[in-house]
Each structure stands twice: as C-alpha cells, then as structure tokens.
C-alpha cells in the first residue's frame, strides 16, 4: 500500500491505495466521486474521462500513484452549489444527453477542448469527442451545445442563447 496525495477539484486529498489501483478506482471508491464512470476499462469508451494538469485523460488508464502531486479535475468540480457550468447548462438546454452515462466524460472532453481552443470548428469538436462513445444521441446535439458555449463565451456573454430546436 502506498500513500497518494493530489489536488482533486481544487482540494488536496490523500489516500492509501494498493499499487495497482487506477485513478478511476481511487476517485470512485475512495473519494466517492462517481461522476467519472467505469465503462470499458480499457480506454475505448471515454466514460472515465477526467482532466489531469489540464489534459483530458482516461482515468482507467492511469495508476492512482501517477496522479500524485498533480491537479485532477472531475465533473464534480465544474458546477458550484447554485450554478451549473456553462457546458452543463448548454447540454441541458439542448437536451444533449439521453441516458447520460457518457455525459461526465463528454463534458470533460469538451471542457479540455474549449480551454485549449476557444473557437473550435465542428470537425475539431468531432475530433475532441472521438474518444467518447455515446450510443444514444448521435452526437449532433452535443456538438451544437459545445458550439453554443464557445459562441456565447466569445461574444462575452454568460447567458446562453436558446437553441433553435427547442421551443
């Protein structure tokens, strides 16, 4: 067993883990952050996507110890007590999720994209979501939601425009 300390959603957290423990297992089972999902467990589905030092990664493919001393951001770190993150808001307004299992991963991938590229093209959004499998939505509404967030940010407004396909 070894002790790991890392920043998770802005808070310094310490845990004792077996060496083979993945970051995903640590987050879900010891830190009770169950937003990142255990899907395929081999880096194909993206349901476990979190950000480590600003980069989107599969939490199932990192050992917990590899995140030691680093900055981990999960879906739980986006919303505040009284306000959703603009991406979460946009996904809600656009009805961009159906069953929702892929949602935390998709939104973390979208955040990593917008942090690096504030004005992505549809192709760039598709590329950023290529590692996040969604079997419900067909992705169209997700792409629209992400575009909306980019547009409203670039227009300097926090308020999201109502999507055209929602009355």
């Amino acid at each position, binding site marked *: 067993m*070894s002790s790991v300390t890392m920043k998770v959603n802005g808070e310094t957290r310490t845990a004792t883990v*077996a*060496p*083979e423990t*993945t970051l995903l297992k640590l987050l879900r089972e010891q830190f009770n952050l169950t937003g990142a999902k255990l899907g395929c*467990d*081999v*880096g*194909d589905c*993206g349901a476990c*996507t979190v950000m480590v030092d600003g*980069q*989107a*990664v*599969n939490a*199932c*493919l*990192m*050992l917990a*110890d*590899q995140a030691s001393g680093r900055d981990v951001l999960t879906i739980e770190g986006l919303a505040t007590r009284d306000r959703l993150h603009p991406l979460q808001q946009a996904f809600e307004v656009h009805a961009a999720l159906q069953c929702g299992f892929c949602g935390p991963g998709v939104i973390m*991938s979208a955040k*990593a*994209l917008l942090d690096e590229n504030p004005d992505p093209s549809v192709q760039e959004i*598709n*590329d*950023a979501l*290529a*590692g*996040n499998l969604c079997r419900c939505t067909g992705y169209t509404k997700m792409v629209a939601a992400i575009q909306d967030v980019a547009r409203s940010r670039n227009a300097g407004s926090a308020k999201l425009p109502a999507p055209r396909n929602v009355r």
Partner: protein
Amino acid sequence: MKAFDVVVAKNAREALALLAAYGARAKLLAGGTDLLVDLKSAAHVPEVVVDISRAADLDGLELTEQGLRIGALATHSAVMKSPLVRQYFPALVDASHTVGAVQTRNLGTLAGNLVTCVPSMDGGPTLLALEAIVTVASSAGQRQMPLSEFFVGPRKTILKPDEMLADIVIPKKNLGKPTAFLKFGLRKGQALALVNVAASAWIDSRRQVFVEPRIALGAVAPTVIRALKAEAWLDGKPATTAAMSEAGRLAAGEAKPISDFRASAGYRRDLIQVLTARALAQAAAQSTAGSKETTK
C-alpha cells in the same frame, strides 16, 4: 487487476538499474495505454512495474547534432504540438493524430507505440520512411540501430529484458524531407489501420525525378516494413502519376497481408497500391510547393 508492485524511477539511470535487477520480472510503465490494458486481462502480472512516466530525462523533443530527438516519454499529443515536428515533419503530426483519441494521445507515447510493436502501429511507418534511428539503453550502456532492425515480429522487438527504448532520432539529413502519412481505418476515430502507408522523397527540382524515395507499410506484414523494391525502382524516375502508380503496384507485391475480420488480404493489397501512390503524390506536391531547393 491482479496485484503487482510499482517502483517509481525518477530518471533513466534508476530505471535501467531496476531493469538490470529484475529483468523479465519487470515491465516498464510510460504512457500506460497498452500496458495497463494488457495487465487488466493478464493471467500473470509482472512482479514489479517500473514507472518511468515521471523520469524527466526521458522526455522531450529537441534538435541535437544527430537530428530530431524524440524522448521515450514524448506523448502523441506532445508530438502533434511540437513546433519542431510541425515545421520539419508534418507527416508525423498526421500519424500521431490518427492514434486512438485525445485521451489516449495525451497519455500514450510514440516510443511506446514502437515497443508494443503491433503490425498496425500508426507511429511506425512515418518514422521508418524517415529512416529513424532508435537508442536502446541498458545499465551496461547504449546502442543505436535503424528502426527497421528494432522490429522483430508482432509484439516482438529486439529489446532484451534489461533494455529499454531511450529515444528515437530522425537523422539530420532528413530534416524537412517531404513526407506523407495515410491511414485507412474503418472509422475516423479509435480504429486500427487496415493499411497505413508513409512515403518520403526528395524531388530533384531540375530534372523532376524522385531522389531517395522511401516507402513504409503498416498492418500488411508481421511488422511495419519498408517496400525496398518499390523504392529502388522509383529512385531516379520522373514524378509522374504513372511512376507513382507503378511504385504502388510493386509495394503491394512486397507486402504479406493477411485476411481477418477487418478486411481480406486482396482488399489490403489494393489499398497498399492506392495509398502508396497517393502518399508519394502528396510528398511530391509538398516538395514542389516547398521553398527548399533540393540539390541532391
């Protein structure tokens, strides 16, 4: 996952000392995108996993006297973002871009792609077409060899249990050599290549002929291979559609594709021919468009 021990190596020296001590009982962990997947389903796990993912001296991408050095820890994302790679080897950016998806590219390393050594690796062909050299290190010292000698078979490299791939060097003579990488997969993301091809070539600007063409093929033989006969035939030939098409035909003849659930051998052969001709055409177009005058 079955239980195993992890030892963190802070630098190359520590990693090599651990490999010398444990040999085949140890496995190196760099990006982890292949290793952890293997360990999760493995009946036997190594006694110890040597975590080199934070060994700073194994990281980095820089120009040295030998050429462009790509450290063992350089991820596919780092390759794609490197100003040096973008300037001199855009085909390598294209190749890294076709690996997995963002999340796996942020973790997985180009060197790890070579070490895992699956025939369909996307990192291999471009490096082979640019005549990359690899540095193999052990606690006894290090040796360099052409990448073509590093590959032994499917999932098998020349590495001995106490050795590791320390870095990849693209030789200086090939800095800026026009190169193209093309991959044909069944989807745009998260797909293994049915065939991937890289071609590099200088074009003699006066005579408009191919000089030192290099063609590398992936997923169509036990390892990534060079199409040496096609290269030899094409050297000195005019940069015409007919010549590039003939080089593609020759390359297809040199490969040993198999039929599997993804595609038949015949389909793969057709792909080799088309993709080789296309990659050569793209490399030739870069050469004409580029400002660099070729004197070779």
